[in-house]
């Protein structure tokens, strides 16, 4: 069963799936758990909860899971905290994992802290790195201090150590030869605390940010419709996607799915062009794995210049049109 692994503090990943397709962030977390587990001979378990979701298991095993803990019940078909949290708590008490990872999605952010509170353990939000030490301590790196520093958070005395991680922070891996097993567990459902009346599906436009080779992003420094049209045109000629910083979202220039940074998307394009963005760490952690970062900013002291590869000091209204023309010229030749 789940507790038969002689006192080892194994690593668990809560798997979020929609219509039988696991979420990308869950696969990324399984890959990270696999890496950490291999170093210390631990097992990786994927918690798969839902109704008729058994067919998701092979993907989770290929993504790196040794065990898929499968909990099926018609009442679990949609996520709901009042059932999911106690079910996971029960599982934790039996299996005694060292750590449990959740994607920092709307569901993960609703569920992980609730599970942590029920288990009276620590929960670290939006980690940008996870490391494991020999004695099983999980080192959870988060930006601190309004982003000027990084902090390593630990949960020294309680288990499991619970962490949430955003999409794109870790990279998915694929182990076609990997063997795993599916462990059926019958969930003990507790009393409902609410009635889920309905789930209204909305067709979301998938964000282009994750797949684009080039991303052009604007910040608080780009404050007019004409300015954003310029950025859109630049993104267009580079066949890239358009994104922005938090102020760009707050000011209504971009949609939520286009916000880049700690509380938005983490992306790794080949080229990232930041325009009118000061370079706050809470923004930059979202692009730290970009291959090349170019900054356009009118303030020569803006911190972004030390966090980018190439900097152009100047007003974007002057820089961007020249850049658009030069790119067009290069493409014609």
């Amino acid at each position, binding site marked *: 069963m789940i507790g038969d692994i002689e006192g080892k503090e194994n690593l668990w990943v809560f798997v979020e799936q*929609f219509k039988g397709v696991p979420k990308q962030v869950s696969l990324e977390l399984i890959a990270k758990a696999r890496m950490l587990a291999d170093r210390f001979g631990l097992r990786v378990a994927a918690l798969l909860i839902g109704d008729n979701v058994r067919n998701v298991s092979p993907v989770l095993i290929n993504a790196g899971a040794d065990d898929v803990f499968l909990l099926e019940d018609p009442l679990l078909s949609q996520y709901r905290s009042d059932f999911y949290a106690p079910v996971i708590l029960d599982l934790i008490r039996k299996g005694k994992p060292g750590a449990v990872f959740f994607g920092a999605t709307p569901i993960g952010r609703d569920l992980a*802290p609730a599970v942590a509170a029920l288990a009276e353990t620590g*929960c670290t939000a939006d980690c940008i790195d996870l490391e494991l030490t020999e004695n099983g301590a999980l080192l959870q790196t988060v930006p601190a201090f309004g982003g000027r520093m990084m902090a*390593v958070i630990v949960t020294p005395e309680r288990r499991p150590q619970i962490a949430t991680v955003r999409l794109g922070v870790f990279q998915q891996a694929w182990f076609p030869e990997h063997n795993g097993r599916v462990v059926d567990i019958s969930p003990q459902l507790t009393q409902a605390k609410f009635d889920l*009346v309905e*789930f209204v599906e909305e067709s979301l436009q998938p964000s282009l940010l994750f797949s684009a080779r080039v991303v052009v992003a604007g910040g608080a420094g780009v404050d007019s419709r004409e300015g954003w049209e310029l950025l859109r045109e630049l993104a267009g000629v580079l066949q890239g996607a358009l994104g922005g910083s938090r102020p760009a979202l707050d000011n209504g220039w971009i949609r939520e799915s286009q916000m880049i940074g700690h509380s938005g998307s983490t992306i790794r394009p080949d080229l990232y062009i930041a325009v009118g963005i000061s370079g706050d760490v809470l923004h930059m952690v979202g692009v730290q794995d970009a291959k090349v970062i170019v900054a356009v900013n009118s303030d020569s002291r803006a911190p972004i210049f030390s966090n980018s590869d*190439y*900097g152009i000091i100047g007003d974007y209204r002057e820089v961007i049109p020249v850049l658009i023309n030069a790119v067009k010229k*290069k493409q014609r030749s």
Partner: protein
Amino acid sequence: MHVAVCVKMVPAPGQWSRIVFRDDGSLQREGIELIINPVDRNALEEALKIRQARGGTVAVFSMGPPSCLEHLREALAMGADRAFLLSDRNFAGADTLATSRALAAGIKKEMPGFDLVLCGSASIDSGTAQVGPQLAAYLGAAHLTEAFSISVGEQNCFQVRTAGSHGYFVTDLRKPAVISVTKQLNKPRIPTLFDIMASCNKEIIILSSAELSLPKSESGLEGSPTKVRELFFSPARRLARILEGSMEDRVEELLRQPGVAGVLK
């Protein structure tokens, strides 16, 4: 309908650089200008609307240093009936679990018959969004997060719409419950001069850890399962090259760089 609203005081944007970390990992915030966490105003606004429709009371709970007092005045001016400040050296350095435990103890003591607790979805300073769900666990109540619409129905029931990844959930929630709300929910009122005057005789009660029967081992830094183990500056690993010359020259130079030229093809 008795509604508790949790309100956090956060450093005003622009005040970040003045915050200092103490050696024990707690934050030194003295002398820093505070504001009410913006989305917590939406939570309060919703509570006031519910009171308007259904009667009852609205109480505000905040945990923080004594400098939070004046901002609780603002919550009273908006229309809250009572305000409680959980303030005690023992509370300092709390992680979300210790924060939730303390807030739950305050609500249980001062508003034992609460129907609803409203929180903001996340604070603008640390923004973990964990306090709502954890508070619910300590209160033994149901919780929902990312609520963008709440309607109070017949018989103890609230219908709540919450945002998910692929759409939204419509939930009938029985009381007592904890709901974390988003800014889309409503537009918070701005108190008038009259409101401010009228709130002057409302009382703010300060609660210590002893009054909440919380031992030191369950409060603040000591009662927090998470600890800050290390702080470091993230190392710069970029070229940080500033391009010089006329604008045309700089742009040409940029497009010649291998990492940039490569993606133009």
